């Protein structure tokens, strides 16, 4: 008893970073409640090495189930099969999209309690207590479980990746019969698309644009400012404008995009929804320009400008250029 089952998402032969964080955290918590951390992978032809590599992050065992990749319901089937075979007290998910879907489906299947958007978990008397920020992160609620299995879905980047484990995880194949409805969704095309590759992870200065830019053309303002900074400066975007086709996916910050921590993050016309915040909150200096004084981004920016970015950005670009030239 006391074992924790962690979903390890993989893509093109690599484990997702948030899953590695969840395995690391799961290992720490399992040892605190007297159990083991096991990882579960679902896909076709997953290599032994990839499964075993989770041992380095503290997984004692890696369960491998056969099923379609990138879809939640086959993973629910696999995790339910593992949990119903006994020994698991908790299921743990790193941040991202599939974790929400799998965790929620699993809660329904098992009649289990679920805590979402969790930023920290602690062990208390052999049980886990999850901490979840609520109301725009103005309070943190604590959630415990009274079902035999508790489900914890973390927020993006909630857990640190720790290579604490020794050696490799034991790889065990898990036979799973998929539910009929789990096979009624099928992947036609998976991953990337939408625009060219832009490198934002190595940037020292990022000018990020959101809906407030008004149109795809608005990104010119952000690009001009980034060019004025010169050096390792780049342009990034929110999910809303990437979905709208204004900017390539490769430049997207947040929940289903990239996580960055540049020296300067200047957010132009970005409201600062949690899904965006989780991808940039560790930036060293955050400057926000937004015309809505109630925008949540002002709650976590170091310098907030309430005003029209269309007026401010061009002048700021000129001023930065002048400063650089002086």
């Amino acid at each position, binding site marked *: 008893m006391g074992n924790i089952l962690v979903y390890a998402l993989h893509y093109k032969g690599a484990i997702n970073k948030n899953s590695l964080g969840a395995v690391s955290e799961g290992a720490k918590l399992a040892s605190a409640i007297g159990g083991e951390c096991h990882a579960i992978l679902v896909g076709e032809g997953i290599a032994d090495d990839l499964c075993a590599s989770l041992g380095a992050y503290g997984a004692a065992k890696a369960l491998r189930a056969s099923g379609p990749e990138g879809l939640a319901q086959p993973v629910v089937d696999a995790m339910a099969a593992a949990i119903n075979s006994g020994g698991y007290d908790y299921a743990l998910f790193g941040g991202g999209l599939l974790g929400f879907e799998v965790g929620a489906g699993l809660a329904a299947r098992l009649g289990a309690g679920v805590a979402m958007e969790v930023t920290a978990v602690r062990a208390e008397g052999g049980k886990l207590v999850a901490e979840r920020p*609520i109301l725009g992160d103005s309070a943190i609620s604590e959630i415990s479980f009274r079902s035999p299995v508790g489900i914890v879905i973390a927020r993006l980047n909630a857990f640190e990746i720790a290579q604490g484990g020794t050696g490799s995880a034991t790889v065990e194949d898990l036979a799973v019969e998929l539910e009929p409805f789990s096979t*009624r*969704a099928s992947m036609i095309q998976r991953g990337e698309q939408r625009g060219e590759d832009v490198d934002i992870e190595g940037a020292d200065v990022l000018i990020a644009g959101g809906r407030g830019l008004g149109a795809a053309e608005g990104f010119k303002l952000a690009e001009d400012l980034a060019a004025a900074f010169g050096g390792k400066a780049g342009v990034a975007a929110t999910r809303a404008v990437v979905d709208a086709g204004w900017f390539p996916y490769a430049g997207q910050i947040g929940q289903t995009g990239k996580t960055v921590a540049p020296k300067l993050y200047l957010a132009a016309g970005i409201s600062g929804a949690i899904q965006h915040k989780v991808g940039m909150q560790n930036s060293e200096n955050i400057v926000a320009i937004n015309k809505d004084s109630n925008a949540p981004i002002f709650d976590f920016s170091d310098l907030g400008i309430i005003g029209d970015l269309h007026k*401010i950005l061009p002048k700021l670009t000129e001023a930065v250029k002048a400063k650089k030239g002086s």
Partner: protein
Amino acid sequence: MKICVLVKEVPDAAVQKRIDPSTGRMDRSGEKNLNPYDTHAIEAAMQLKESGALPIDEIVAVSMGPESAVRALHKAVSLGADRSVHLTDAALAGSDVAATGYALAQTLKRESPDLVLLGQQSDDGECYTIGAVVADHLQMPSLTQVIKIDVEGGALRAERQAEYGYDTVKVELPAVISVGDAINEPRYPSLKAIMGAKKKPFDTLGTADVDIDASKVGGDNSAAQWTGSKPPPQKAPGIIIEDEDTAETVEKIVAWLDERKLI
């Protein structure tokens, strides 16, 4: 064919939200509105119906919530739903996401929908999850955070952004789909539609009407239990400048950046 759209009443965006310290539940008094994401779900249903891509006979708005949720259902009807169903029962108060999804699924079973649509998240908390809970109870395929739906050979071709970029997924009906706000631009209701909304068929149901096992719902029976709350770690508040004279504002920004050696 029938589409059911799940809608929810949420505190208006302008209302300062707070938690009742004695229960840990959200204080739901104050001005309320239809969850903005749900208006995109209704619009998606309307577009499927109007395009003729699927032979949709009826769009039904379904909500669970206290008496005041009637207003959210009226709004849903004014946006195009043909009728509405309101699940309301004191026994449901304080249900967690798993219990809420179960109760909604029981209500949906009565309607036997060919498609269930909902907003991907609500303004007041339960993020992204309710669709997947409902789908598992209904034993239907499910996809969340969808930003494009096409009909192809009687099935849906749905697009969404996941961890590694954009995925296109074929989903056979019946199915549960949650949509993001990029999927469409919801229409404004006409005055006539607003006036007529109260005259459209409206069912009020309790837990007994839809075979909800009372031991599985409500705050006390929920498997996830709120056990306390605490303030978040405090971060020093930032400097706020209101832009009145842009030249001056820019000067201040540059000075601030310069001080931190960021230029």
